[in-house]
């Protein structure tokens, strides 16, 4: 049956319902709920790293570079190339790499987007 404007009840109800928009980024930042297991910015624990280079070989975006420091080989992560696939975290044998919940990965200097 054709009834024009059937949406009118819903439209009028929407006037009084709470808005569906979250006013990010100016207000209401507490309304952003990120679940556990969200794939955000990489975090690295140097103490657990054994220098196996598996993360470097597996990264699809070539965002990891191996350098030498006083304890041996270790990766540095370029967040501006990272695609947040978490393959490096999955393949690391000592779980030295983890994904945090930070998703606002913008910076004014490239240096701020390198995790050492």
């Amino acid at each position, binding site marked *: 049956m054709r009834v*024009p404007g059937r*949406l009118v009840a819903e439209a*009028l109800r929407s006037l009084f319902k709470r808005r569906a928009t979250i006013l990010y980024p100016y207000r209401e930042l507490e309304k952003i709920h990120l679940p556990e297991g969200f794939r955000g910015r990489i975090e690295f624990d140097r103490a657990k790293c054994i220098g196996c280079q598996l993360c470097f070989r597996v990264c699809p975006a070539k965002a990891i570079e191996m350098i030498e420091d006083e304890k041996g080989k270790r990766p540095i992560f370029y967040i501006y190339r990272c695609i947040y696939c978490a393959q490096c975290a999955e393949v690391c044998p000592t779980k030295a790499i983890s994904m945090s919940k930070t998703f606002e990965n913008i910076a004014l200097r490239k240096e701020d987007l390198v995790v050492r």
Partner: protein
Amino acid sequence: MIEKILAAIFFPGAVFLLAASLFYEWVDRKLYARFQNRVGPHLAGPFGLLQPVADLIKLLSKEDIVPMAADRLLFTLTPILAPALILLACMFLPIAGPSGIISFKGDLIAVIALLSIYTITIYLAGEGSSNRFASIGAVRAALQLIGYEIPLTLSLLSAAIAAGSLSIGGIVEAQAERGIWLIAGPQIIGFAIFVITSQAEMERIPFDIPEAEQEIVAGWEVEYGGRRLALFRLSKDLELILLSGLGAAIFLGGPIGPVIPGLEPVLYTIYFILKSLVVLAIFTLVRALFARLRIDQMVSFSWKYLMSLAVILVILTEVIV
């Protein structure tokens, strides 16, 4: 004489109308967003009230580009003519009193004529830009005029017949004398026709066919930018005041209401604004509820249903009044 000129410039004339048109655009956008469970403008000024102002200033500050093959006369003239026509028509609205700044017998017909000339101006604006999309949009605007003009005229004229006067001021006074608004009676059909055809006049959904964004990329206004586009948008906002004000004056009794002697202009203006905001809310609701029609569907709908309804309305008005 001097008061008339001052009234035409400041209140309730050009300055007041321009400020009010920006306010009406804010109401329209905010209501439309709330119907869709969104926020609407909220950053520029308190509650986003200054958003239309910000948009206008932004447009005015942009570069002015005229296509090489465009008709310079039309390209320059139509953006000035469009808001001027609507502003002139708004002078007939009874805002601060039972009759407008300009008022004479038969001024209802003058307003309808100005609205038609406005649509022809849009046609010229589209044809003057040397762009295929603009030509298609312009032709659609002219076709749409053929569809809605007669039902619009008939609905307003039936109200005039019921009130016994062809001037807007006369219709308002007739409602004040009788004590009831024209909408309470067979003129409610006229109000319905008026709402539908006003949507077509103002080129809003479901009749925003001449500037269908998803089909012909802004239609007749596709080549206009910067100051010229600002003037066209201003003419659209002024049309909001004109048509909602016309609906309020003719069907809802205009600025008439309980008054305190001495404060009459202020109270009349407040009543006028409140009533025309109600009509504006109805316009916005209609805009939120439908999809866009095709031009052939719009014209055939107009001639099949709106025309017959308008003719029935005229017969009813003659019989009952």
